[in-house]
């Protein structure tokens, strides 16, 4: 491969009880690119994504073997600071899950819990930067006190992304971020992601193959807990090596 991976998994296995959800995953995620993980429902793509910020820790009966290397460190090591890991590896969920509170509260929540800054002006600058980063500043600069629940869904999802990038992460994980949005809002979020990849390493889990083809530089195809194929998106979609990948992207199943 022609890059130094931002995230690398080595023989990663994950079990829910006795069910093997991830089977020996070895993947190298390129830096400052959009990597798409595609595959049918239940193939383990969200589970894989949740390994990168250790959100699977929250589920009981999960057992993980193998390594996930981020910046030369195995994130499952005992001395890893989980809170900093999650700050560096931000996550955006399927539903735009803003807090039932003001836009300001939503954005400053991370600053507050990590005690990043106290100075009001600095906080306001950070808010402006993050909102500009997601293209919301002009819409929301006069509405910071407004409850985020009353924003349109697309703006809520942008706000969720802003809530992540205000913490200066290196990596952003997105778990089907457009599945509750209409096609126009979806395109707008995709434009945003293309812009964000200049500064962040982005991994997106998606059901939508067209979406993967439109925005990602690299794609991984998963099936029944296995990573079947990982390559440049162009190659995956035009000339896959594995017949199962071809079957899936040509719509023969899934």
């Amino acid at each position: 491969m022609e890059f130094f991976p931002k995230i690398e998994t080595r023989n990663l296995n994950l079990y829910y009880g006795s069910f093997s959800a991830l089977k020996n995953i070895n993947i190298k995620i390129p830096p400052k690119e959009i990597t798409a993980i595609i595959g049918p429902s239940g193939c383990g793509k969200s589970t894989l994504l949740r390994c990168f910020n250790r959100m699977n820790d929250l589920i009981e009966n999960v057992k993980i073997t193998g390594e996930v290397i981020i910046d030369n460190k195995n994130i499952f090591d005992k001395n890893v600071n989980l809170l900093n890991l999650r700050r560096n590896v931000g996550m955006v969920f399927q539903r735009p899950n803003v807090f039932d509170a003001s836009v300001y509260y939503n954005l400053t929540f991370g600053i507050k819990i990590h005690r990043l800054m106290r100075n009001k002006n600095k906080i306001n600058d950070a808010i402006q930067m993050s909102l500009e980063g997601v293209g919301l500043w002009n819409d929301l600069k006069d509405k910071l006190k407004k409850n985020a629940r009353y924003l349109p869904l697309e703006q809520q999802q942008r706000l969720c992304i802003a809530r992540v990038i205000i913490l200066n992460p290196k990596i952003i994980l997105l778990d089907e971020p457009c599945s509750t949005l209409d096609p126009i809002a979806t395109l707008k979020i995709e434009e945003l992601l293309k812009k964000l990849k200049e500064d962040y390493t982005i991994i997106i889990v998606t059901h939508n193959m067209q979406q993967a083809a439109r925005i990602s530089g690299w794609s991984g195809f998963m099936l029944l807990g296995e990573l079947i194929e990982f390559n440049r998106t162009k190659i995956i979609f035009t000339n896959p090596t594995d017949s199962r990948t071809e079957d899936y992207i040509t719509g023969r199943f899934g």
Partner: protein
Amino acid sequence: MNLARIRERIAFTILGLSTLFVILPIFAIVFYIVKNAIGAISWNFILDIPRHGMREGGIYPAIVGTICLVLGTILFSLPLGIMSAIYLVEYANDNFFTKLVKVSIVNLSGIPSIVYGLFGMALFVIFLKLGTSILSGCLTLSIMSLPLIITATKEALEAVPFSFREISLSLGATKWQTIRYCVLPYALPGILTGTVLSLSRAAGETAPILFTVAAFYLPRLPRSIFDQVMALPYHLYVISTQIPNMPLRLSFATAFVLIVLVFLMNLVNVILRIQFRKKKQW
């Protein structure tokens, strides 16, 4: 009209009638008490001490006593109940011991109140030598209220969706920060309702205070937490059964005051809930 429609009608009628039968007695009780009490209620009745073998005068010491008992019970049971519920829901491992504790708590709320009264007398009054005092009474009432408060808090915490915790944790918050900022604010209305319910019960109970705090006749206000006090439910019991030739309207007036007190507590609950809804970030 087809059969399914007819059945639906019948079902709704039965359900509606059941609700009516539940509500009717409540209205009947309140109406009956108000009707009989209205002549006896006056500022004098509320602010005067009982006189002439309690056949005249007011019930001021009993009102103050009950308020003291309720406040003291809040002081002990609310922090303890909420904190242990948070521990049980958010921190405790799901093992045999935890399950045992949870089942015990549910069962505790079914224990007759007289048992709590006897237990309170044995432990606080006699063994810990706190005597028949406000302190003993509050502790006994607290123990009785705890299961309800814990159960209500537990249910309120469990009703907060997992996704709320998920966002907070994914942003790198600790478990405690997550509970503090993303769970408790949403659970609070439920916690409040459960607390007020259990306190209403505590305010109206006679058995737990019978041996631990309640005075038969004590026409002055308490000076410390080691004093005995009169309390409304016990006073009501006394004047209804122990005093010959007791004017009935005074009993009803006492019952009326007790009901108003419970109503006021629920009113505070409603007001607090509205306040928290307005301003959920705290």
